[in-house]
Structures are given as structure tokens and as C-alpha cells.
């Protein structure tokens, strides 16, 4: 079967745009119903105070057009992945743009586990920084997930600004990512009580990117806990600030090698228990010394470097948590109010929080960098 680590799931669910509030698998507020359907709906519920039964609710939703492919117009392909193709579309119900993710169900082993997890996890999550699932359509050979349409994800965003983001935008995005991971986003929300295990080896042919995996997982730890995500957050901070992935390894050994070369080969002091780790010993890595991160991320300020350093600690017990990092000095400049907005509200509901124009933005730099943009490797990025 396919492998999809909880770490990746949580990152992929995170979105970074300005978005509005209705965060449920529910009827959009701006829905316009044809009068005959409205009438029908009213007739179907003789006792208006009594909630509709599951069956009749489903029937009424389908009368409106939910669960039907005809309700959505395909506008063009946005991308193609291992098990799904994503189209831009428009809902005839709301005239809103949507993203249609078509998942092919005809697989050797039935419905792909990645699809099953994606849907079941998204159904449990309600958060301004998590993409909203509006509808699920099942046709003969396909399952189509209807998501709210996002102008771009972070990868496209980075490509669009030629990988040169304004540092103030880096901070806002970083805060949103951490917000998504803190508070609401517990493993239990994912139904991942089981998630005490993280796939470390390649069990399938599917490419699972190693770039955001912490050394403890690469070295065989299967204990799932939030510090795993926090390492990845550090990698993303670096990537936003520099425009390059931090540790773009293609094998476990290469990934570890890249990490150790920059952060220093772990010792009993920096990573308790490491000298007893059989896998670590078998690799026989040279003794690298940790390099100063400031030389590699010159655009990041002192507080940013400090946050990055605490995100990239080997010792999972010392690695900073999502909750603690929201309170890190790096975010002080965003003001105090940002800590009191409700989960379902966007950070942009505060008038002080605004995105700046990115220095590398396509429109202003087109003539200077006609051929820059993504290298072949960028495809693996979580963005």
C-alpha cells in the first residue's frame, strides 16, 4: 500500500492564505437555491424543529446538488499527483471557485489509503489554517473531493516570487503554520491515536519526501509525537527565508549526511542515547561540527535564527513545541492581539497583519529572471 506519514498529512492540510470563516463540511452561507427545491425541502420537513434524519438530510443535500458532479464545472487542470488529479472548477450552487481533486479508485488494492485518510482527517478538522472540504462525489471509478479554492499553495507562492519572499511575510506564514499545528491540531483530531508509528522505510514505490524528516525518525524511531512536525517546521522556515530546501536528500543516508554536515554529527550530549543507536553506528558518519546557521540564512534576524535553532534540535525533549514557538520572541513584532483570535478566524482579521509585496514577485522581476524558478528537485517539496 501507499505510505503517507502523519507529518506530511499535517503539512499538506495547512494552508497559508487569507480565508473566511465557514470552516465546515456544510452548506456555504451564500448558497442560492432554486425556489422549487426550497419548497421541496420545506415540504420534506413537516416538523421544522425536529432535525432531519440522516437519510432525508442526505436526500435533501443531493436535491440541492451536493454529491453530484454536474454541480461543478471543470475549468482547467491544476496538477497531477500519484493518485489524484486536481482541477480548478466552479460550483454552480455558489458560483465560487473550487478545487476538484479526482482520486482514481481503480487500484490494485482498492481505495488508496492516502485518499481514505485525507478525507477522514479533514472531516474532523475545523481551523482557519486548514483547507475546507466542501463536498465528496462518488462516481463509478472516481472519488472527487471538492475543496475551497486557494489562490496558491506555499510552493506556488514561492515559485511566484522567485523564491525571494519578504521576511515579514515569512513571519506571518510561519505563524499561521504554527497556529495550525498548535492548539486544535492534536493527533487525536486526526484520529491518530495509532499514530505512535511513523513510516521510516520505503514500504511502497511511492516517493515520500525525506526532506522534512527529523534524524530521530530517519534513524528508526517510530514514536510519533509533535516534535517530529516541529523539525519539519524548521526546515520550512529555512526554505521560506532562503528559497532553497534545507536538507534535500534523496536517500536516508544522504538525508542524514546533509543534516549532520550542517548541524554537526550528534553526540551523547546533543542527542542522548544516540551512541547506542545501532543504525546510527552502522553508518559511520564523520564527526562534523555544527555550523553557525546565521551564515546560511543571512536574511533571518537574531530571533529568527534562535527559533530555527530550537526547532532543529536533535533532542526531541528540548525541541520547541508549536505552542511555545508561537510565544517566541521572533513573533513579538506581530503584536499581542494575534494570540487571542479564535481558531476559526484568520490572522488577517487583524488589521495590523498584512502581507507585504515580495521582492522577487513575478510581475516586477519578469524581465530580470526570465528562466529562473523551479528546479527539477522542487517537485518533492511539501509546498
Amino acid at each position, binding site marked *: 500500500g501507499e505510505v503517507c506519514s502523519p507529518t506530511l498529512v499535517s503539512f499538506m492540510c495547512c494552508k497559508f492564505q487569507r480565508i473566511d470563516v465557514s470552516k465546515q463540511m456544510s452548506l456555504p452561507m451564500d448558497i442560492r437555491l432554486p425556489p422549487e427545491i426550497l419548497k421541496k425541502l420545506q415540504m420534506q420537513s413537516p416538523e421544522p424543529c425536529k432535525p432531519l434524519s440522516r437519510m432525508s438530510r442526505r436526500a435533501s443535500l443531493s436535491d440541492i446538488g451536493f454529491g453530484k458532479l454536474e454541480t461543478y464545472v471543470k475549468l482547467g487542470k491544476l496538477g497531477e499527483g500519484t493518485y489524484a488529479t486536481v482541477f480548478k472548477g466552479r460550483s454552480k450552487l455558489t458560483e465560487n471557485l473550487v478545487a476538484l481533486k479526482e482520486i482514481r479508485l481503480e487500484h490494485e488494492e482498492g481505495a488508496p489509503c492516502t485518499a481514505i485518510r485525507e478525507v477522514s482527517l479533514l472531516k474532523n478538522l475545523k481551523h482557519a489554517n486548514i483547507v475546507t472540504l466542501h463536498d465528496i462525489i462518488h462516481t463509478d471509478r472516481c472519488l472527487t473531493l471538492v475543496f475551497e479554492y486557494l489562490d496558491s499553495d506555499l510552493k506556488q507562492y514561492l515559485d511566484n516570487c522567485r523564491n525571494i519572499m519578504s521576511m515579514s511575510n515569512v513571519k506571518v506564514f510561519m505563524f499561521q503554520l504554527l497556529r495550525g499545528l498548535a492548539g486544535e491540531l*492534536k*493527533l*487525536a*483530531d486526526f*484520529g491518530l491515536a*495509532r499514530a505512535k508509528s511513523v513510516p521510516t522505510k520505503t514500504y511502497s514505490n511511492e516517493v515520500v519526501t525525506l526532506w522534512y524528516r527529523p534524524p530521530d525518525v530517519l534513524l528508526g524511531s517510530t514514536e510519533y*509525537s509533535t516534535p517530529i512536525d516541529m523539525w519539519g517546521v524548521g526546515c520550512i522556515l529555512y526554505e521560506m527565508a532562503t528559497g532553497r530546501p534545507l536538507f534535500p536528500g534523496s536517500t536516508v543516508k544522504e538525508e542524514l549526511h546533509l543534516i549532520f554536515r550542517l548541524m554537526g554529527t550528534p553526540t551523547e550530549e546533543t542527542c542522548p542515547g544516540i551512541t547506542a543507536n545501532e543504525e546510527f553506528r552502522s553508518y559511520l558518519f564523520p564527526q562534523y561540527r555544527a555550523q553557525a546557521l546565521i551564515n546560511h540564512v543571512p536574511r533571518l534576524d537574531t530571533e529568527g535564527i534562535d527559533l530555527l535553532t530550537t526547532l532543529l534540535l536533535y533532542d526531541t*525533549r*528540548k525541541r520547541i513545541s508549536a505552542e511555545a514557538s508561537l510565544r517566541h520572541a521572533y513573533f513579538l513584532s506581530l503584536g499581542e492581539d494575534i494570540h487571542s483570535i479564535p481558531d476559526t478566524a484568520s490572522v488577517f482579521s487583524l488589521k495590523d497583519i498584512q502581507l507585504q509585496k515580495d521582492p522577487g514577485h513575478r510581475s516586477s522581476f519578469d524581465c530580470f529572471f526570465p528562466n529562473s524558478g523551479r528546479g527539477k528537485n522542487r517537485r518533492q517539496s511539501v509546498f
Partner: protein
Amino acid sequence: NLNNRLIADHHEVIYDESCFIIQKNNEEEFLALNCLARQPQITAEARCKLVSWLIAVYKHFKLSFESCCLAVNIMDRFLVTTSVAADCFQLLGVTSLLIATKHVEVCSPRIKQLLSLCCNAFSKEQLCNLECLILLRLNFRLAAPTLAFFLDYLVSQELSWHRVGGKDDNFTD
């Protein structure tokens, strides 16, 4: 160093605690009470037999207890929504197990292996069709809090309570 460790331990407790609260709150939504009430052909005895068989199957594949519990929950919740013929009941059992493992495990058993455990009484197509039907009837709500989760949590609470010599007043039943 010791201080850091204590802080980390404390964080873990808060974390486990909030997972428990979330799961406890979700529990009600995923209960399948009286799942046999409207089943013309499935008896409590048959369900009991199938669950015993599923326990043997999950052990055979060395799956987690979580998968096994989730499989039974998926099966029961499906039974609430749909009448199942007695001769399809075993297919429902393995298909529920397959869905549970896809949700929980790193690696699921192959469909072929599952079918052969049913003495090839069913075809792959039948299984795949039922898989889709279950997913749709359950509306993809698969992240059920399970017996395995609650047991795990309560046992770890009990253990940590013993470790600190019974001074932990966070422990609630």
C-alpha cells in the same frame, strides 16, 4: 538538564490529557448502539463469531490492536445503516478490517490475502465495491476513538500514577 526533562515530561502529560479529552468528546458520534436491531439475518451470535475470527486475523497479520478495534467499529456502524445478508457478513468483516488498516497501519494486508482467508468465497470486485459502499455510508468518518486508545491512555495514567507514588492528582477515572 534534569529541569528540561521535567518540563518535557510535563508537556507530554498535557498532550496526552488533551488527546484523551478530544477523543472522549468524539466518542459519542462514533458509537454503534443496537447495531443488530434492524438486521433481519445477522444474529448476535454470528457477530460474536465474526469478531472472534477478526481477532484471529489481526493477530495473523501482526496488525495493531487499534486496527482490530477500528474494524469492529466500522463494521458495527455500517450495520446500523444497511441490512446485510448472512452470506455477505464475512466479507463485511474483512472489508472493514481492510479499511481500518488503511487508516491505521503503515502497511495493509493484500486484498488477495484477505480473500484467501475467506476461502475465496468472494471476489476482489465484490470486496472493492463493498469498500466504497462502506466509505460512503459512513461518510468517510473513520477516525473513531477506539477501545485501544482508551486502554492505552488509562494504562499509561495508571503507570505514571504508580511511578510518582500515588501523588498524581490529575488521574481521573
